[in-house]
């Protein structure tokens, strides 16, 4: 068997290797940065429900980083008899775990915020003594929330968003997307704290509810995306917006073979790479192994994501297979 025939490829081409190294760096950077912000916020979290919610969201945002780094260990393993498809699905499993965690905790925080609002709990924020001055803790909360927003929105959020499409990694993509939207959380908690400051007690609970709804939405989005991929939905682009264009290119490549009358594919997303089953209707009843081999190699050469290619000569194309328009 030639190298191109290798199933469930675990190595990556140059560009992706570089991108992956960068991604790992940014994941560790995020973990270090977030640990700092969690500690910093811990000093000022006080009795504000909005601050508490934002703080817990910060902790939750660590889950995708760990999921990515842990999944990476498995993704790199070569396929064997026991795991003939490799372990690429580890990325999807990590994605699912992160989604469910976000969803559950978000729901919990929303219930907390609503029950605080219903019970009309007035949040109490006093003062602290700083360098001999007595200042209202709320001002410190606002300052910290402005300070910590820099990392996700300006530094690592955009960096990961640039790497996700290169690696075709949905976990990285949603992680980046959430980081870039992090300013909403910080802005909401600042509004909540300033609300307490001017005596509008319910603004705090309302801000907490807004933040937790954001967490629930992120959780739902991640869970849905992970579940449909684990259930072998046809492969889509990294942002789940369109069917992946590779399917059409594979069909085109197969149709351009002189011995092929028609072709269609079933392509599923294994996490970082695709598993492709291509159905071809040959022009004659006899098909040579050489032709099939060549076709398979040509398809595999299309893109680094399609190493796992199976070509099935058949009478007619299955209805479910993607004939690309």
């Amino acid at each position, binding site marked *: 068997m030639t190298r191109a025939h290798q199933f469930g490829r675990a190595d990556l081409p140059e560009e992706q290797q570089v991108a992956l190294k960068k991604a790992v760096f940014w994941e560790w950077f995020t973990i270090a940065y977030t640990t700092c912000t969690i500690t910093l916020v811990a000093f000022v979290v006080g009795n504000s429900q909005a601050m508490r919610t934002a703080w817990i969201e910060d902790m939750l945002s660590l889950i995708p980083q760990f999921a990515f780094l842990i999944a990476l260990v498995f993704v790199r393993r070569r396929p064997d008899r026991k795991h003939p498809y490799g372990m690429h699905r580890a990325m999807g499993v990590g994605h699912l775990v992160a989604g469910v965690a976000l969803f559950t905790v978000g729901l919990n925080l929303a219930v907390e915020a609503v029950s605080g609002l219903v019970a009309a709990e007035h949040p109490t924020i006093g*003062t602290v003594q700083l360098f001999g001055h007595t200042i209202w803790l*709320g001002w410190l909360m606002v300052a910290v929330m402005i300070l910590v927003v820099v990392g996700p929105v*300006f530094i690592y959020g*955009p960096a990961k968003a640039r790497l996700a499409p290169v690696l075709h990694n949905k976990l990285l993509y949603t992680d980046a997307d959430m980081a870039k939207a992090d300013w909403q959380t910080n*802005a909401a908690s600042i509004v909540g704290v*300033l609300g*307490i*400051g001017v005596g509008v007690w319910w603004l705090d609970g309302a801000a907490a509810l807004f933040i937790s709804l954001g967490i629930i939405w992120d959780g739902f989005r991640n869970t849905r995306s992970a579940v449909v991929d684990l259930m072998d939905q046809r492969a889509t682009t990294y942002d789940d917006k369109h069917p992946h264009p590779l399917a059409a290119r594979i069909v085109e490549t197969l149709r351009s073979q002189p011995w092929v009358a028609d072709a269609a594919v079933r392509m599923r997303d294994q996490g970082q790479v695709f598993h492709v089953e291509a159905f071809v209707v040959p022009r004659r009843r006899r098909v040579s192994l050489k032709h099939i081999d060549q076709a398979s190699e040509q398809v595999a050469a299309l893109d680094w994501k399609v190493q796992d290619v199976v070509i099935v000569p058949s009478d007619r194309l299955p209805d479910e297979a993607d004939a690309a328009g």
Partner: protein
Amino acid sequence: MTDFTRRRAAPFARGAAAAAVLAVTALLISACGVTVPSDPDGTLDAVTGGTIEVGVSPDPGLVDTREDEPRGPLVDIVEGFASSLDARVEWTVASEETLVGDLETGDLDLAVGGFTDQTPWSDRAGVTRGYTSIEGADGRSLVFLVPLGENALLSELEAFLDEEVGS
């Protein structure tokens, strides 16, 4: 690729939006002439130049309620705080639970006694920072209770305590 460029520009637009929201909020706050922090129920405004309703719970060495008027180091501190607000103190002697209930209904503005920073009432009353150098504290970190969310009163009281007894 056009899609990608739009994405890269987004954080800056968002940062600008966030800054705008903050600026508008700050403007609104200063325009209304509100002090920060404010009391949702206006307790500090109500007691300044008027009467402050203070609940006491007896505690040996801190509050003595055996005579008509309560006495002790905590009582002196409260009297000092009241006079800084030009307020007259109206005392109520009761158990801790009754005092906390009265804070919740708004019948009391302040409660003192042997409350420490470990007080189990922190869910139902606003609690000041702990003060260890009050006479008779005996190593305890003493706190004062105010109605929940009355942050102006709480901050005024803490500022007064920082001045008078240190932290």
